[in-house]
Every structure is written in structure tokens, then in C-alpha cells.
């Protein structure tokens, strides 16, 4: 009998990084070392602790990383609490990759890119950011606008400081919601910060964050002159199978797990408002 996508692989957690008080980044490798499977930026995988639960997570490492996969996971439910309690060496089950990906090899190629993220919303974009950084010659300028509640809630902060900010042609603009000690950067919400920064409307935008942030940021981008055809986002709905069969993650006739999670806003606009 052929492999069935519902039957998962076993992966080993080989490193755990504490990003924020409620976000950890888990490094996952095959038991014999190396990656469990290849993916493209924006794709997801089903992680599970048998008996606890299974859920879909964005693969946050770049496909250009040939050694392992990473998942940045926020603690918000039963399974994620369990994952956060794991120690290095713990096995989990993994299946995927699922969904489409950001069109890094087609529509995004040669473009100036603007990434806008809020909170844990950086996780799905990190895969793309590191992919385009590694294939720098294929893309134009890169601008990253990232905000979170506080400095302590910035995901991948060390990577942002030590790698992204030091890259040529990569501009990183950070903001936090409220002023705090030890922060001399920008203070304010992401949608306003985007408007203040007034990015060039030639850029292609990739946006991810809480629904309310996306809503206001999109409105702001439109005010600046951006068109919906220039803006991509990635969606999250309840999923079980990952392959468009279990029937719950649809928006209209599109399944987020299979036809998404990446949508361009003009495509999303044609679908019913039920997400």
C-alpha cells in the first residue's frame, strides 16, 4: 500500500529556543538526522503528540536550510502547552508539507519586497525572509516592518539583530505597542508605523499577524496607493487533514490547507467573508 499522508513521520526535537515568554522555536530533525521532507516558504506541517492532539504550524525555517526544520510556536492551547513543556530529545510526529507557498520563484522574483508582521505573525514570514536573503540576487530591496506588544514579545529578536539588520539591502523597522525601559526604537501600532514609513508603492507586500492588524494595515496600504494584487497574506483556520478532504478549513470553495494558506488579497476578496 502506498504511503498515506495521514500517517506521520517521527521527528526529534534537537533544539529549543525561548523566543518570548509565550513563544518557543523548536528545531526538528529526522531520527537519523537531516530534514524529514523538503518544503517551500509559507508551507505548513501537522505536528502532533499522540494522545494530546495534532495541529497545523507554519514551517518557519527556510528551505535553504538543509539540516533541519524549525517551528516557532505560541502557547495558546492544549497541544501547544504540551509542546512548550518538551525537552530536547523528545520525539513528535510530523506530516506535510501542506498548502501552497509564497510565490518566491514566480511572482515575487525580481521584486522589491515589503514584509509586515505583528507578533507571532513573523513566524510564517521568517521562512520567506531567510529564503530571499539566501537567494539575494533574485530579489530587489527588502524591507521588514515588525511590531509586537513589547520588546520581550519580538520573535526571532536575536536573529533580527545579528543577521537581518546586518545584511546589505535589508531594512528592518521595529516597533512595540507601548514604550518600555531599554527600548529606544519606535513605539506605536504596526498599521500606523507603516503609514509613517510611507514605503514605495512599487513593493510587493507580504503580511501576517493578528486579523485586526491585517485589516488596518491593508486599509493603510490602500491609502498609500498599494493595490490588493500586490499584497499577500497567509491564513489560519481549524484543520484536521491538511489535504482538503476533512472539510473544515474552507473559505467559500477554497481550502486553506490546500489552496492556501497563502492568498493574494484580490483572490481573498472574491471569497465570502468567513474567516
Amino acid at each position, binding site marked *: 500500500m502506498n504511503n498515506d499522508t*495521514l500517517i506521520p513521520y*517521527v521527528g526529534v526535537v534537537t533544539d529549543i529556543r525561548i523566543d518570548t515568554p509565550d513563544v518557543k522555536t523548536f528545531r526538528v530533525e529526522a531520527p537519523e538526522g537531516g530534514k524529514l521532507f523538503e518544503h517551500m516558504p509559507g508551507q505548513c506541517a501537522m505536528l502532533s503528540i*499522540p*494522545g494530546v492532539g495534532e495541529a497545523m504550524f507554519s514551517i518557519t525555517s527556510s528551505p535553504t536550510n538543509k539540516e533541519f526544520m524549525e517551528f516557532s510556536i505560541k502557547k495558546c492551547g492544549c497541544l501547544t502547552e504540551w509542546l512548550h513543556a518538551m525537552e530536547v530529545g523528545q520525539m513528535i510526529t510530523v506530516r506535510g508539507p501542506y498548502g501552497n507557498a509564497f510565490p518566491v520563484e514566480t511572482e515575487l522574483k525580481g521584486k522589491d519586497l515589503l514584509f509586515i508582521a505583528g507578533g507571532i505573525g513573523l513566524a510564517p514570514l521568517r521562512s520567506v525572509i531567510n529564503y530571499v536573503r539566501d537567494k539575494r540576487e533574485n530579489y530587489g530591496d527588502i524591507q521588514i516592518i515588525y511590531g509586537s506588544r513589547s520588546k520581550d514579545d519580538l520573535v526571532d529578536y536575536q536573529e533580527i539583530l545579528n543577521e537581518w539588520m546586518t545584511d546589505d539591502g535589508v531594512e528592518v523597522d521595529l516597533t512595540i505597542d507601548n514604550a518600555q525601559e531599554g527600548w529606544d526604537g519606535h513605539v506605536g501600532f504596526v498599521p500606523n508605523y507603516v503609514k509613517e514609513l510611507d514605503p514605495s508603492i512599487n513593493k510587493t507586500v507580504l503580511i501576517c499577524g493578528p486579523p485586526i492588524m491585517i485589516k488596518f494595515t491593508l486599509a493603510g496600504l490602500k491609502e498609500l496607493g498599494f493595490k490588493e494584487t500586490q499584497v499577500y497574506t497567509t491564513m489560519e483556520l*481549524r484543520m484536521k487533514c491538511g489535504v482538503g478532504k*476533512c472539510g473544515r478549513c474552507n473559505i467559500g*470553495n477554497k481550502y486553506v490547507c490546500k489552496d492556501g494558506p497563502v492568498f493574494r488579497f484580490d483572490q481573498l476578496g*472574491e*471569497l465570502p467573508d*468567513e474567516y
Partner: protein
Amino acid sequence: MLRISADKLDSLFEAIAAKQALYIPADREDGEAEYKKYVSGMKLTSRLNTLRSAKDFFFPQTEDIVEFRMDGKKIEVNDIRKECEDFVIFGVRACDARSFTILDKVYLVDPVDSFYKNRRDHGTVVTMACSRPAETCFCQTFGIDPTAPEGDCACWKAGNYYYFKANTEKGQVFIDSIAGLLEEGDTAELDSTVARTREIMKKLPLANLSTENFGGDKLNEYFNSDKWAELSESCLGCGTCTFVCPTCQCYDIKDFNTGNGIKRYRCWDSCMYSDFTKMAHGNPRLTQLERFRQRFMHKLVYFPANNNGEFGCVGCGRCLSKCPISMNIVKVMKALEDK
């Protein structure tokens, strides 16, 4: 055409059941019919159709997927799939036969669902033409001809004979396997039975129900219809319609601690249930209106949008009979069309 006289049907069933498991629709004590594994002496039901649909054979209500052994930090995955044994389902109606091709469009498209395919590969579907349709029947709305059912092999009862015709290679193998019991005979009586049934079809109360106002192009128009509030207002949010429906195919995946490891199984799920789309941080379908709308939009708009205009309903009428509040797809179609 090959046929067998009605008094020899038992010996035909015996012959089939001697080689592989045979399931036929048989009577239950409560007056309903259900598919039962054939044992000597079992009779075909006189009811038009079974309470539960025939999808159960390929997509059972619960099905084990995989097992895990947990040992400290270690997890062992056990693939428990086994090649299924060959079986025959006899007496499937045209509506249910079409439901299989609809389920195929979900489960046999890439990535193929091996659990479904395994059962599908090993099952031979012998359909039974209808001659006495019920008032709740509307298969013709979806282009189904109950006098010429699909399936691997079709069977007709006319006068004192059962007639057989293969529709697929698998069906031909089936006919070959029972050829010794069949005889060639003329089809005059069959032809007149079919003609009579076709006349009855025209008189059915739902004979004029049409799909012309439905399909993928109606997505936003119907999604935003103001009819959903009234249609869904007394919906109990139970799963009866989805569970008796031959084309409803949504499932949940659950883990069960056997005390000796973890068994992961899948089971039917219903978009009518409040937790169907519930996430740790919210739910895009908060009230019964959204859940109700999803079920009918899926069958009448989303499914045809994704499947070249084919609808996700076969007009079997089970939801018409079984909904506790008698709300159903026919009422929904009529209400949505009534502009």
C-alpha cells in the same frame, strides 16, 4: 440479456457469499432497512432504500488510521493498514451509486486517501434499478436515472426476473463469476417496467426541482442571501442530515488512549456541529446560521465550483425523511431561488 428468475435469487446470493462477503439491504425490526452481511435465508428488503447510506462501506463512521507506542521521549509509529478483503454490495440504488463517484472526487484525488481507496478497490457495487420511487426522491434533479443505475454491475427487477448488465470491468468479472446461474432471456418485461417507472418519475412531487439556479457562479450571491436566517432558525445543530447523507464526507481525527498505546482514528464529523471550526482563539462560524449555510453552500455552490459543475447531492431524500425539524436541501433550494 442475462437474467435469473426471482425464485433463484437465494441461490445467487449463496453463490456470491461463498466466494466473498456479500451485503444486501435487509429489513430491521423497526421497519427500516439496512445493509447486512448476507447469511443464508436473508431476504432483500421491500423498502426503497436503507436508512443509512451505502457510503459506510467505503467511508465508515469510524476507522483506525495509525497506532503509536509511546516510551519516554520515544514514539513508534505503527502502520496498521491491511489489504481489505473483496466484498460485494448488492442492491445499491442509483442515488447512492452516484454518491460514490462524488466521494471519489474527494478521496481519490491527489493525495489519494489510501483507506478509502483500499475499500473502493475491493468492493464490487451491484446496483438495483428503482421501480417504485418515493415522494422524497429527486435524483433526476441531478441527472441520475434510477432506471439505469451506475455501479460496477446494474440489476433490474422486472416481473419474475432479475436482469444483469455490467457497467465496468469489475462488474463483468462479477457477472462472469455468476454466469452459471444466469440465462439469456428477452427484455420485453424489463422494457415495459422501465417505461412505467419513467412515467412515475414524471409524477413525483419534486420532479420539477432544478439545479439551473445553482452552481459555482452563485458563490457570493447565495452566501450573502438574507434567507439563511429564516432557514436556519429552528435547526437543532444535530448531525442527522450529515450522517445519513451519502455525500457528506467531512471527518475528524481523534486520538484514543487504549492503555497500551495511542490509537488514532478518524470519524465522521458534521459542519452542523458547534466545534467543527472552533480554534483555540476563535471560530469563523459562530452561530448555527453560518454552520447551516456551510452545509448547503458546499453541496450547491462550492462542490460544483471545484468539480466542473457536479453537485454534492444525489437526491436520495434521506435528509427529507430524517431531519428532526424537517428542514432540508429541497426547502433550501426553493427558498434561495425565490428572489
